[in-house]
């Protein structure tokens, strides 16, 4: 059955969670990984899923030389 954007958002969220502390993932890495796992899913659905994660605050964009998708956390450079 065709996946919804919400379901793909959960898939992406879990990928990000599992990679936390090991590897920073970019939107393109996540899109490729989702399509490999679910070949019937297209790029637009992945885009919509990432939007859902960002708008809900479950994930955040970070920038370290390039833009990544991560779980919200306190960065080490931050001052209180």
């Amino acid at each position, binding site marked *: 059955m065709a996946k919804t954007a919400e379901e793909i958002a959960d898939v992406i969220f879990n990928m990000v969670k599992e990679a936390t502390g090991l590897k920073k993932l*970019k*939107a*393109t890495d996540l*899109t*490729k990984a989702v399509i490999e796992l679910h070949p019937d899913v297209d790029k637009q659905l992945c*885009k919509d899923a*990432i*939007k859902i994660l*960002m*708008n809900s*605050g479950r994930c*955040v*964009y*970070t*920038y*370290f*030389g*390039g*833009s990544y998708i*991560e779980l919200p*956390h306190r*960065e080490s*450079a*931050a*001052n209180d």
Partner: protein
Amino acid sequence: MADNTVKTPMLDELEKGKWPSFVKEIKMAAKKSPMAQDLLGQLEQSYNEKIGHWKHGGIVGVMGYGGGVIGRYSDLPDKFPNVSHFHTIRINHPSGWFYTSKALRTLCDIWERHGSGLTNMHGSTGDIIFLGTSTPHLEPIFSELTKEGFDLGGSGSDVRTPSCCVGPARCEWACYDTLALTYDLTMSFQDELHRPAFPYKYKFKMSGCPNDCVASIARSDMSIIGTWRDSIQVNKDAVLEYASKGMNIQKDIVENCPAKCMEWDGKELHIENSYCRRCMHCINIMPKALRPGKDRGATVLIGAKAPIIEGALLSSVLFPFIKIEPPYKQIKDVVAKIWDVWSEEGKNRERIGEFIQRVGLGNFLEAIEVEPVAEMVAHPRENPYVFYEEYFEEDEGEEEEK
């Protein structure tokens, strides 16, 4: 707060001379902004020690967006608590940088309420830059800006805020409506601007004619530069008038034409338009006598960048001439294909120009389904734009027949 009578002998040196001084501006702001006062203190210390005291913050932003805020923290927060956070905000500027004074006041009022009051009008990409605020102020600033019709610009691996020259709003040389195209691309690519999903940044810059006042050929991944494909319009009487007023048409115009396609016999100027390189030289020198042709559009070029991973690149021709008319389908279609290929195959932090160099122009053109043409050759005998496969196939076929 640092003592606002703090001595800044190193910075004071930068106030000397006839030119504008950022130190003078920060001192002016420091009269009422504690952030600007601590900024002076931290800068003075940096100049003394020859060490920067900023830390990069990679995580601050507004909810949902991945661009528009660049995080900065002081590594001397106890000494300069007012610049402990000193984030930069990029705001999407209006096409051609046209503002009403009311809009400028609105921007400055928002910024004085929530930040240091220091601005940079404008950053090198073109955005309005607000310098120095703290994390708790980011969402309130964003909400006040959007209420007034402004939005954040791009940063990170996304489409950077498109920018253009003043175009037909003020300039008679504009060969297309740069402002309209810039606005359209900005609105069409909102997602790509706010939600980074590329290997690295992607900049659009629109210039109305080959004078290229926004230097798009050197500074943008996609340069859209106005041009014409018919003949330069010549007002013969006006040419004679220039000559009668003392202009040396032979020396100043004909001999400086890079295509050597002009002739002047003292009475009439002849241009061999098929050789003209559309450089604008003659038109700039005799604006009353010469104008771009009537069949106008743009050359689309790709791949410029400043040096980071590889050296600096100028953009090179993708489409020698296209008409630039709404809804700009040809540009948007090719951009979608370029982003697809680059997102799929590009390396992290690899600009499109570097990507093309790595995979080869021939392979790139094939992937985006654009036919090679001679105008794409940047340097003769260098661009691998000729596809040899078909010749090999023919040869193989011939051998089999033998």
